[in-house]
């Protein structure tokens, strides 16, 4: 998948754990884990909105497009 998710780096910057973020955005840890590990096939805007709001970042801070060679 060319879309790379750097959620773990942002969590580190904001000194937040995945569990804390899951509680704040009301998404299960399992789902956030799917996102963090890059296994997600799609993300809802509502999820992106909640994550960016809690991490106080832009979507581009946690999502990047890296085309495959």
């Amino acid at each position, binding site marked *: 998948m060319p879309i790379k998710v750097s959620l773990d780096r942002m969590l580190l910057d904001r000194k937040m754990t995945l569990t804390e973020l899951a509680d704040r955005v009301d*998404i299960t840890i399992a789902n956030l884990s799917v996102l963090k590990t890059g296994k997600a096939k799609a*993300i*809802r805007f509502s999820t992106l909105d909640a994550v960016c709001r809690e991490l106080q970042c832009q979507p581009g801070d946690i999502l990047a497009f890296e085309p495959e060679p």
Partner: protein
Amino acid sequence: MATYPRVLGRTLDIIFYALIGTTVLTVLVVVAMFVWKSPNVDLAVPVAFVPDAGTVTLRSDVYGDGEITMAQGVASFEEVGGPGHVAQAIAIVAVFLIPAFVILHMLRRLVRTVAEGRPFQDANVTRIRVIGLATVVFELLYGVTNFLLQQSVARTVTASGVDLAANFSVNPAVIVLGLVIFAVAEVFRYGGSLQAESDLTV
């Protein structure tokens, strides 16, 4: 668990175990008739026949004159514990009960996954295909068994007033139903791909 699938699941369980009980009882009765010549149960066999020429006339203001070219029914014989009863029991088990068990077993598993909120699985696609196949096989087996039993009667029984014959027929509606069930399996397969997509959407 959703209520309706749970109730349906319980109902299927009851039918499944009732069918097991009926099968065991049938086998026990047949064994008892064969070994102890008791209980005395009439043997019912399917028959097909044509009435002797001139014995049955049909007249109608709507349809005109006609004749019966083929009739089907059931003949009853007094036979206690003979090979006929054993053959009939085997035919019933093979033709009716094996496909019925297969269909019920698959349905029970399918409804359980629906009750658990996970109906769109590969296993269910297979189960629905098996149900469709069992439906078609059941109808074909029924037609063949009926034909063979009628043939056996025609060969071994003498009748007055009618010519005994054998007639092969299957209900095309049941065959079409089997095909519809196969189509439903494809819908479940597509549902599975949508489910997989949804599972990986956060």
